[in-house]
């Protein structure tokens, strides 16, 4: 009988141990990650198998083969219907980066083709819903690199499109959620709502964060930053126009640029800098974040 009581108490303690702290987003994620990892041990071998099938020029290896908590997300390159021509590049252009937001959950999706966006389908020409609609703060994630825009983007099939990935923070509140450095790097530009950092390590990627709250930015040009270091709060700033503050939805626009070289038939190289799709790197970073990677650094 004592054994039964002990078992009952043990079960209760185990259950209590899974209770996340309501005030700590990271521990919430970790708890969920632990739970999901427990469920997923069986799929590890499948992961390894999938990785050995790589036909890419170089496959993900090492830690990336291990099982990480998954979350609902559309595959890369799959845009919201009728939101643009998309792209085909399936490269992880920034492997190993931290996820650019400190707290989870976060929601990568379209600002324009979702509720509250100018192109969200609705019966009314003037009202397109609310940016705080629960649909915007739910999984699955949606890729929105190359979403229809007028900006030149040679990676997009149409030659034009969105140059980064939009990410909504945990909830529809501005100036609360921290954006963090994705790599060890140096701050190379700060605008009224932008922060750019350049990675210390080759290939010295340029990462830009847009729509930040300027007053909250904790770094200056020339500052060295480490992975997970707080940069500033995610807001809805869009600069000014004729002296009047402009706003967008509450989100982080995150973009990555990489210097690239194309080898020609005669052996010569052509080189240029280019925006690259961040979605694959972000999914990977988010999964690692859910498993406890990249603790926030003040």
């Amino acid at each position, binding site marked *: 009988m004592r054994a039964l009581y002990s078992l009952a108490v043990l079960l209760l303690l185990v259950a209590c141990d899974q209770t996340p702290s309501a005030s700590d987003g990271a521990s919430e994620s970790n708890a969920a990650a632990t739970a999901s990892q427990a469920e997923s041990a069986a799929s590890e071998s499948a992961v390894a198998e999938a990785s050995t099938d790589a036909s890419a020029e170089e496959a993900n290896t090492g830690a990336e083969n291990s099982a990480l908590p998954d979350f609902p997300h559309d595959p890369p390159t799959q845009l919201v219907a009728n939101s643009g021509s998309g792209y085909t590049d399936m490269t992880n252009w920034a492997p190993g980066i931290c996820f650019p937001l400190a707290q989870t959950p976060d929601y990568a999706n379209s600002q324009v083709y979702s509720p509250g966006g100018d192109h969200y389908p609705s019966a009314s020409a003037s009202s397109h819903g609310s940016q705080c609609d629960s649909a915007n703060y739910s999984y699955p994630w949606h890729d929105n690199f190359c979403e229809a825009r007028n900006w030149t983007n040679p990676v997009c099939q149409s030659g034009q499109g969105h140059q980064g990935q939009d990410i909504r923070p945990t909830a529809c509140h501005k100036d609360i959620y921290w954006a963090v450095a994705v790599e060890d790097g140096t701050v190379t530009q700060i605008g009224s709502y932008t922060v750019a950092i350049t990675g210390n390590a080759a290939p010295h990627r340029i990462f830009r964060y847009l729509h930040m709250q300027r007053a909250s930015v904790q770094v200056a040009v020339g500052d060295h930053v480490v992975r997970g270091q707080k940069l500033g709060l995610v807001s809805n700033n869009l*600069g000014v126009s004729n002296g009047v503050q402009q706003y967008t939805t509450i989100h982080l626009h995150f973009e990555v640029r990489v210097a690239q070289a194309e080898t020609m038939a005669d052996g010569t190289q052509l080189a240029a800098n280019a925006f690259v799709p961040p979605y694959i790197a972000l999914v990977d970073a988010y999964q690692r974040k859910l498993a406890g990677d990249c603790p926030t650094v003040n």
Partner: protein
Amino acid sequence: MSDSGKPDRGALASAMVGAGVVAILLGGLAFGVVTYAQVKAQTSASQVTAARPRPVFALRKPLPPAKVQWSSALRQIATQNQNAKTQTPAGAFAAKLQKPALDQIRLPVILPRNGAAISAAKAKLLSFGDAYALNLPQDQGVQITVYGNRSFVPADAGAISRRPMQRLLNVAENVAVEQTEDGWTATFERYGVVYTLDVSCDDIKSPACASDAYLRNAVASFSDVTLGAQAQAEASAAAPQPSLLDKLNQNISKLAKGN
């Protein structure tokens, strides 16, 4: 039950305790389920689920640092020095940059030519060794940021060769010009290095960002170049050494002149 058909007190007590334990167990399990549900809800309906086979994506390792065409950079510097005899010294802008950073950069650092309307008053030069950034805040919320980089990642066939490029006035190289969320960017290759010039504006409708004209002028103005200590050393090491025949010719020439 006892043989008499009456409930046995001992057995009843055991049954009650057993039922209690089962209740506790079920309660514990139920609590556990609720807790897990809470976890799922608080990670935000997170629907964080078991891992599934992860798709495999391509990775692209950076290539070794590209060779810089030092001789071209040195020729440009010689031209600048020649012009300096009649104009403001070409090093005036360079003198405003942070020398420790400049000396660590293993690249030609491009600068605005004399007379260009680009302020270096708040210039910040940042070294990454094989890359650098030069942030140049201008008036009225306009910023120019120049990046130089010789650490490349392999690109797909056509990614650059089929990219739309433009010829800009007074610029020798083809330049890719693109509008961004907060301004304009240009990228081009010079001396074997990729240079990127961003113009960003607090007011996207301000004259500097309303069109690409300001960016084009800025790119055209960045025709000068300077080398820090490490770049100088690398340029010297890369300079062709005179052959034995060259040395013999030099000696003969000296002898002929009576030196």
